[in-house]
């Protein structure tokens, strides 16, 4: 798809190793160039500013997901059948199935158990004192989600690696995506096996799906993709947010003191963490009909890239966007997406991050960085890979 001659272009690859490790300077340049910027390397119109990202997310008739949200046509073909990759009534039906066990209402009964697990995780970390923050961040999602989804005990150790692979292939078809493709297919194969053997834990969300299939509400062949909807986006994303929270509070001791003085700030701090270090960099949409966005004509069939992580740093929307401040009202951040495809698991994610922060605030005086943090390499997920910290008990 050729670009319109008036649209500014940005030649550097925003998925290069350098850009993946340090994306914000690239996003700043994109925002400076304009509201719609052509990326010749990926043949997509990038939307680096808040207003256009939001407008596109809210207009799911023109900007569709059914032909995929990746920058990789292979993935877009393989991932049909998930909630993420569907439009209209197909989407509404899948979303209802997937979301009803994830609403804050449905999660209420879990709250206490999650808080207990979070307290145990923080106590264990405090006993060690010198920790890798990523281990803390990993512990809660991997303790909570597989049981909730009903994933059998076997193969749980693969879930994180499968999740990361599935995200990698949602970016452009680069070397990282190619390397991940085999692992990405592994999760699909396993999900099919789980559905076939019915090796799902009873009473779980996955069990609900299979029963909906028994009752003829959905086809059994749809179940594996829907299982993946629950599993893949639920581990790495939340892990990213918890690890970034630890990193941000370690490097902003004044903000940690504010949170300790007033734990009522935690819900807003979660929005600010997801704004400042958005776990998901970007997904795309296919333009279904000729349209105009911010004065730019976009032909049917072209693709736009919704850069959540850049929208959340847009100075046209946020005062001092590069400052981490848990007192700002960050509730309109786009890190969970927005509208029809707005994150179905955000209630669970908020519950987990809230539980960890509550446990930390009650027990930890200071979070001290003890070494250079390392960021992971993934096309979609921005998350820490190593985060050396000392936790000083209160």
């Amino acid at each position, binding site marked *: 798809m050729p670009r319109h001659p008036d649209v500014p272009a940005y030649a550097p690859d925003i998925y290069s190793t350098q850009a993946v490790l340090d994306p914000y300077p690239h996003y700043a340049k994109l925002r400076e160039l304009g509201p719609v910027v052509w990326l010749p390397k990926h043949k997509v119109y990038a939307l680096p500013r808040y207003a256009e990202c939001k407008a596109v997310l809210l207009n799911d008739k023109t900007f569709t997901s059914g032909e995929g949200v990746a920058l990789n046509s292979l993935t877009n073909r393989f991932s049909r059948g998930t909630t993420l990759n569907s439009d209209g009534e197909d989407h509404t039906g899948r979303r209802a199935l997937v979301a009803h066990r*994830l*609403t804050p209402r449905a999660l209420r009964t879990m709250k206490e158990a999650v808080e207990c697990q979070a307290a145990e995780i923080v106590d264990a970390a405090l006993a060690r004192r010198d920790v890798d923050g990523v281990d803390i961040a990993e512990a809660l999602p991997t303790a909570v989600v597989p049981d909730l989804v009903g994933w059998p005990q076997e193969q749980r150790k693969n879930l994180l690696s499968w999740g990361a692979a599935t995200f990698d292939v949602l970016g452009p078809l680069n070397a990282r995506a190619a390397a991940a493709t085999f692992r990405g297919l592994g999760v699909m194969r396993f999900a099919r096996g789980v559905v076939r053997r019915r090796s799902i834990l009873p009473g779980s969300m996955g069990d609900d799906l299979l029963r909906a299939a028994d009752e003829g509400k959905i086809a059994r062949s749809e179940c594996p993709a829907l299982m993946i909807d629950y599993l893949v986006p639920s581990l790495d994303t939340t892990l990213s947010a918890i690890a970034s929270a630890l990193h941000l509070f370690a490097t902003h001791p004044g903000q940690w003191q504010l949170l300790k003085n007033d734990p009522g700030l935690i819900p807003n701090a979660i929005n600010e963490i997801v704004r400042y270090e958005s776990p998901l960099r970007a997904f795309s949409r296919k333009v279904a009909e000729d349209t105009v966005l911010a004065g730019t004509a976009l032909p049917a069939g072209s693709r736009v890239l919704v850069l959540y992580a850049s929208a959340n740093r847009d100075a046209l929307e946020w005062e001092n966007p590069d400052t981490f401040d848990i007192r700002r009202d960050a*509730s309109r951040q786009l890190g*969970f997406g*927005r*509208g*029809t495809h*707005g994150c179905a698991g955000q209630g669970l994610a908020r519950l987990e991050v809230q539980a960890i922060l509550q446990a930390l605030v009650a027990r930890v005086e200071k979070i001290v960085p003890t070494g250079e943090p390392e960021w992971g390499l993934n096309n979609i997920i921005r998350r820490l890979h190593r985060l050396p910290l000392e936790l000083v008990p209160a």
Partner: protein
Amino acid sequence: MKISVDHDRCEGHGLCAVQAPAVFDLDDDAHVVHQFEGGTVPPEHVEAARSAVNVCPVAALRELT
């Protein structure tokens, strides 16, 4: 100014109630309750109500003109 609620779409995330407690609340089942549903939002609550529309993560709230 009026605000419509798509009750099928609301998943009870409750962000609206934080932004505009005088306009939105959650019932015991965590469904949104709109104090002025079908009617006009009083001028003193319009600003808060707008920011509630703005933060609803699933776009269940819509401002009608």
